[in-house]
């Protein structure tokens, strides 16, 4: 089964920041970014990004280099991102809300790390790295002395633009890279398919390290609109809702779990800031459609809800579905729709042969979305990028590990994972990585992490621990885990167990552990 996306030609040099530069030339006085009362016009943001790019090039951090960006949401973050792209380098977002130990681990996984951009509030977090730290506050005089013209760096669509970390099965996060042409193709699709324009102002509500945040950060700059950023290190629903109320914001990109929070906030406060948006683009985890349907269908709601599917390895979004088309008598779950421009969905069996319409198989992505692969080593995940023959011609695909099928009407439905990976509040998590982190804690002999639905229908992680000696205190284990893992990776519940149940093959019997959770009866 092949579900093809529309073929739309891209420019000969599909480089994302060229679009931004064109807007800076056409509408230099338009506001590019608005954050905590600070505004920068397209002219000023472009000039400052150019100065930063010239500094990087002067220091030899040009084409092919990787630049870590460890900043809070601010105009400076966009200066650093655009400047890095203009220098021909790729940026790696590093969320300052992460524990310092986690950031150290991530920094160690970035090959050719040329420099790390930081600010006074974040410099301490990244000083450990074996790459120079560029503190924007300290460097302000040198930066101001740099030329403001666009640097003459011949960036191509093949060059990498960013790389983000995703959870890895071997216990080490994987750094997955995206090329300019992948990202350009995505932004070009969203812009033209949904008619985004110079008034399509956007608010970023997701954490910086997420793949979806990269798209959210660049989308308004690609179409000439204003980017609104919240001066908050953590998602702040009250602040987000106030900004949506006070400003003429038209688009929001978020994880499904954030959508529920915002919708609940709107219902509780009696406002209409969400219903008057043009678009909410969301996905990244299974949608509980009943949590938003009543609000979505209320009279006066003019916001188009785009339920989307994709993976970080393939520029974040592969398919999109207008939730207005959803009929609960047709499908239990909301479809994720049809592929974007120049992107195909293949549903394949275990031998990588196509299955028929309506038959489930592995969702594989082909076309210009397919990214550059992993930058840190060749773990088992690397084999997910592979080549198949279609009508006698080789086609490069990415095997997502997600199961799904295509309906008679040509809509993709996602059924779930083929392995143990899980999404928790939009973050892709491999339970093995958490098990490794637990195994490194003193007092833990063995650990198994399982996923079960929580009270509200979302996913919840439970860790089963075999102690080396004395029983472990939940709160103590949690506190120690929080020092090394992002919060979404820390299990909600801990259970101490004498030994882990095994399957006849000697693997941890996760089904038995889930049974224990459900029934309360200890597994064997």
């Amino acid at each position, binding site marked *: 089964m092949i579900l093809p996306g529309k073929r739309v030609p891209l420019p000969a040099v599909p480089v994302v920041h060229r679009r931004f530069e064109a807007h800076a030339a056409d509408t230099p006085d338009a506001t590019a970014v608005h954050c905590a009362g600070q505004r920068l016009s397209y002219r000023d943001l472009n000039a400052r990004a150019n100065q930063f790019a010239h500094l990087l090039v002067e220091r030899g951090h040009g084409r092919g280099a990787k630049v870590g960006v460890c900043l809070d949401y601010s105009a400076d973050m966009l200066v650093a991102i655009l400047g890095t792209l203009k220098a021909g380098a790729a940026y790696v977002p590093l969320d300052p*809300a992460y524990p310092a130990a986690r950031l150290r681990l991530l920094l160690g996984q970035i090959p050719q790390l040329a420099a790390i951009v930081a600010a006074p509030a974040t410099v301490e977090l990244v000083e450990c790295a074996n790459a120079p730290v560029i503190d924007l506050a300290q460097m302000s005089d040198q930066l101001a002395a740099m030329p403001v013209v666009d640097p003459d760096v011949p960036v191509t669509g093949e060059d990498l633009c960013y790389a983000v970390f995703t959870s890895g099965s071997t216990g080490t996060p994987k750094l997955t890279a995206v090329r300019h042409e992948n990202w350009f193709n995505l932004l070009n699709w969203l812009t033209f398919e949904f008619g985004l324009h110079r008034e399509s102002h956007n608010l970023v509500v997701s954490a910086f390290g997420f793949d979806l945040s990269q798209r959210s950060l660049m989308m308004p700059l690609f179409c000439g609109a204003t980017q609104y950023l919240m001066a*908050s*290190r*953590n*998602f*702040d*629903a*009250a*602040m987000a809702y106030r900004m949506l109320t006070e400003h003429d914001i038209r688009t929001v990109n978020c994880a499904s*779990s954030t959508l*529920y*929070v915002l919708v*609940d*906030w709107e219902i*509780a406060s009696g406002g209409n800031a969400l219903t008057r948006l043009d678009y909410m683009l969301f996905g990244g985890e299974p949608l509980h459609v009943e949590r938003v349907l009543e609000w979505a269908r209320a009279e006066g709601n003019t916001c188009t809800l785009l339920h989307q599917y994709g993976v970080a390895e393939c520029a974040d979004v592969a398919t999109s579905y207008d939730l207005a088309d959803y009929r609960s008598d047709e499908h239990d779950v909301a479809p994720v729709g049809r592929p974007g421009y120049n992107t195909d969905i293949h549903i394949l069996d275990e031998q990588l042969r196509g299955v028929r319409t309506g038959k489930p198989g592995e969702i594989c992505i082909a076309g210009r979305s397919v990214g550059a692969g992993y930058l840190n080593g060749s773990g088992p995940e690397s084999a997910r990028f592979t080549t198949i023959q279609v009508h006698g011609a080789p086609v490069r695909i990415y095997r997502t590990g997600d199961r799904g099928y295509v309906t008679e009407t040509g809509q993709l439905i996602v059924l779930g994972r083929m392995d143990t990976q899980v999404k928790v*509040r939009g973050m892709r998590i491999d339970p093995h990585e958490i098990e490794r982190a637990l195994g490194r804690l003193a007092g833990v002999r063995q650990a198994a992490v399982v996923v079960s639905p929580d*009270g509200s229908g*979302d996913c919840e992680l439970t860790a089963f621990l075999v102690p080396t000696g004395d029983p472990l205190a*939940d*709160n*103590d284990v*949690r*506190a120690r885990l*929080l020092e090394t893992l992002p*919060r*979404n990776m*820390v299990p*909600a*519940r801990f259970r101490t167990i004498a030994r882990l149940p095994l399957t006849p093959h000697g693997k941890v019997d996760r089904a038995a552990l889930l049974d224990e959770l459900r029934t309360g009866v200890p597994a064997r």
Partner: protein
Amino acid sequence: MTDEGNVMITERVHAIWRRELGRDDVAVDDDFFALGGQSVIMARIQRSLIVELGVEVPVDQLFRNPTVASISAYIESSRAATG
């Protein structure tokens, strides 16, 4: 600012935490995240503080003051500051 006012705020914040975390064994010095708290619960607590106490506490402050005792002290002091 009075001790009595502070005690009242602490009690109300304590009740909100117990309700939103769905557990009774919350001590005023327990860490929110060590109790299994996460961002969605944080948003509900933020909402409850607005509705029940009439204060909007930035989420960054909720993260910086992750216990009932410390966030209550923060609310008390920010109320005193704004009169």
